């Protein structure tokens, strides 16, 4: 199963459990975000990736330049475990 197939199965299940009113709120928020133009303003291909230093789960500081020292990087932004 692809990731999207797994997510679609999860979404289908979610839709059966969550009250309609709640779904409206969620859907409206997603629509607002899609219409806000934020995606179009986000960082584009060809830009320099902004530098950062963040702590990993062991408390060690990791910088963008440090992470790129040995090669390219796949950077994924993750909302949370919930």
């Amino acid at each position, binding site marked *: 199963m692809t990731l*999207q197939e797994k997510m679609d199965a999860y*979404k289908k299940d979610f839709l059966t459990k969550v009250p309609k009113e709640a779904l409206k709120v969620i859907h409206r928020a997603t629509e607002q975000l899609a219409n*806000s133009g934020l995606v179009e303003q986000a960082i584009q291909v060809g830009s320099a*990736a902004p530098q950062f230093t*963040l702590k*990993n*789960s062991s408390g060690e500081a990791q910088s963008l330049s440090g992470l790129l020292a*040995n090669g*390219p990087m*796949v950077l994924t932004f993750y909302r949370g475990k919930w």
Partner: protein
Amino acid sequence: MELDALNALIDEISGLGATLVAVSPQAADINKAFREEKKLRFDILSDPGNAVAHQYGIRHRLPDDLTALYTKFGINLPEFNGDDSWTLPMPACLIIDAAGVVRHTDINADYTIRPEPTDTLAALKTVL
């Protein structure tokens, strides 16, 4: 789900000489527990207040009716993330080359749509 799917490809990503890193607004201890639970073989970096997400242009604040709903569902972002901003990053997968240039982006306002890791891997191969 998404991090599990990326984790499944970690050997191939490393094999191509690339690093995989996740950035999340969650507190470091939550990231740590999650990483151990899911046996993730890549780092999760803690981005308090989504400050770095903001620099990448993907931070957004949840509308009030949604924050009320999440609170009702027990999704207490201020508790998980350690700040009151109720901001989140849009799901985003970027490929940055060794020179620090963004070479690929996959960003979606709809959090139920995530980049397919196999597509990310294919894009990574074109960047090398």
